C-alpha cells in the first residue's frame, strides 16, 4: 500500500519515519519526498496489509502527520489512447508497458503517481486521480 504523508511545520525535524520503521520492523520505502523549510510531503510504500497497515497509519497520525492512503493514481482513457507508447519509456518505475499487440498496459501496483506520463501523452488520454 502506498501512503502520502503530509508534514506540517510542527512535525518537521523529528525522525518520525525512523521511529515508525523501528516500531513496526517494516522495510518502508520512500518513493518521493518534497521537504521544504516549513512543509513536507512524502510518498511511501508500506509492505503490509490489514491490522499491520492500520497500525502504521495510526503511528504516523499519532506523530501528527496527515496520512492519505493512495489506492488509485492515474487513469488512461481508452477512447482517446492511440497506443503510441509515448508514456511508456518515460515512466521511471516501469508501471506502463506495451504488450505484443502494442496495447498500453498500466500496472497500478508499480505506479508512484509522479505524473510524468500525464504530460508525456500527446493526446491527453492520461489523468491524475
Amino acid at each position, binding site marked *: 500500500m502506498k501512503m502520502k504523508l503530509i508534514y506540517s511545520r510542527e512535525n518537521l525535524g523529528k525522525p518520525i519515519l525512523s521511529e515508525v520503521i523501528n516500531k513496526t520492523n517494516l522495510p518502508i520505502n520512500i518513493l518521493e519526498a518534497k521537504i521544504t523549510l516549513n512543509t513536507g510531503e512524502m510518498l511511501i510504500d508500506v509492505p503490509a496489509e490489514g491490522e499491520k497497515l492500520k497500525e502504521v497509519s495510526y503511528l504516523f497520525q499519532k506523530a501528527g502527520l496527515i496520512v492519505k492512503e493512495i489506492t488509485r493514481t492515474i487513469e488512461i482513457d481508452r477512447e482517446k489512447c*492511440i*497506443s*503510441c*507508447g*509515448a*508514456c*511508456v*519509456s*518515460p515512466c*521511471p518505475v*516501469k508501471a506502463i*508497458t*506495451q504488450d505484443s*499487440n*502494442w*496495447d498500453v498496459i498500466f500496472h497500478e501496483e508499480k505506479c508512484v503517481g509522479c505524473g*510524468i506520463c500525464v*504530460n*508525456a501523452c*500527446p*493526446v*491527453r488520454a492520461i489523468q491524475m486521480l
Partner: protein
Amino acid sequence: MSEERGIEKLRTYEEINQKIKSGDAIVLTADEFIKTVEELGLEKAAKEVDVVTTGTFGAMCSSGAFINFGHSDPPIKMFKCWLNDVPAYKGLAAVDCYIGATAMSESKGFDYGGGHVIEDLVSGKEIELRAEAYGTDCYPRRSIETTININDLNQAILLNPRNAYQRYTAATNSTDKILHTYMGTLLPHYGNITYCGAGQLSPLYKDKDFETIGIGTRIFLGGGIGYIIGEGTQHNPQNQFGTIMVKGNLKTMNSRYLRGATYYKYGTTLYVGIGIPIPIINEKVAKSAALKDDEIFTHVLDYGVPSRDRPVVKKVSYAELKSGKVQINQGEVPSSPLSSNKLAKEIALTLKKWIEEGSFFLTRPVEFIPNYSELKPLEVKRREPKVRDIMTKEIIVGKPNDNIKDVAKLLIAKGVDHLPIVDDEGKLMGIITSWDLAKAIAHDKRQLHEIMTLKVITAKEDEAIDSVIRRMEQNNISGVPVVDQSNHIIGILTTDDISRKLVRRVIS
C-alpha cells in the same frame, strides 16, 4: 538518373488492377510478406505476391489543410482568420485559408492547435470561424463571426508538405535534467529512448529506392484516399530519410487516423495515418518490401545537446528499439515508440482489405520522385552576438578561504550578484550568489568553501546567446561564468548583461 527505376518485369500495373477487379490479387501486409519470403524464398514470394501493403501512424508536423469557406453576403476578403481561435494562413484569395498543424490557439495555447482543428473538422464538429478584413470596394465587410462544419465547406483538402519519413532518428538525453522535446519526454542520464517510424511496416522504407512510389501514387491517407504529389520537404532518400508530399479530400477521411496532439512544452501537431501499396513489379522492389526490423537501422541521438548536429550515441536497429530496451554504456535503457505501431498495423490491414474488396486500385507514378536530394543547412549570414560579445570581462572572483563578511562587502561595493570562486591558477572551483551569502550569514558560516556551489553551470565564449539563455532557464539561474577549454575563468554572463547589452542591440 531514373531510367532503371520502375521496371515492370514481374507484372504491370494493368495486370495487378485486372486481378484486383476479378478478386484474384494476392495482397499481403509487409509483416505477412516478410513471413512468406522466409518460407518460400524471395524469388518465389515475389512471383506469387502482387501487392504488399504498409502503414504508419505518427506525429507529422508538416501537415495542414486548405479550406474554402464560400462567400458571405456582403462578401469579405479575409485578411486574418482564426478557426477555434487558432490562426490560419490568409495570404491567399478572399475566402481560402491554410490551417497548419502546429499553429496554436491564441487562448488555449499548447492544449489546442491546428492539428486539433483538423481532427474536429473531420469528426464533423462545429468550428468557430472568426475573420478580420480592411474592407475594399468589392469586399466591403470588415469582420465575420460564425461557425462552420466540414459539410458547409466548398473544399477541405489535407495537403501535407512533408510526411512519412522512411525512418527517423531516435532520442535520448545525457543531461541531468528532464527534457520535453518533439521526441517526447526524455529522462535525465540516458533514462530512456524514444523513437518514431514503423520500421518494417514503414511505407517509404518498403520501396526504399522509390521504384513504385512517385507522383500520382494513390494511397491510404487519414482513413480516406489520398495521392502523393511529389517529394516531401527535406527529402533525403540517399540516406533513407526520404519523405513525400501528399494531398487528399478531408471530407472522405476519418478522425481515427487524423489526431490532433500536443508535445508537452513543445507544441501542437497532427498524427497522420498513411498506408502505401507496394506493387511487386520486380525482384528489387520485393527485396526492399521484405526488409525486416533487424535490417533497418537508425541512430540514437543525444537531445541533451541543443545543436543542429546532435551527437550519435548508438547505431540501433528497429528490432532493438521495438524490443523495449537498448544497450547503452553497458546499461539497459528502456525504449518506447512515439508513433503507434498498433495503428500502423491496422492501416496496413485496412489497405489490404480495400484492395481485396476491389475498392482500391493501384496507380503507376506519372513521374518518379528524386532518389537523390541534398539536405542543406540554413547558414546565418549576418553576424550574431556570441557570449564573448556581451559577457562582462572585468570579473570579480573569490578564493575558497575568503572571509564571508569581506566578500559580502565586496559584492555590495561592486554591485554584483555572482561571485565565481577560483583556485590560485584562476581555474573555476565553484560559485556564490548574494542569496548564498544571505543564507551563510543566517547560519553563521565563516568561509566561502563552506557554502559555495561546486557544480557550476558554465558557458563557452563562442556559444550562441540563445543556447546559454535556455540553459539558464532550465537551471533557474541568473548568471554563468564563462570558461576556456582548461576551465580558466575569462568572464561572466548574467541576465543583467543580456537585458542591457543584447536588448539595446536589438532596439538599435
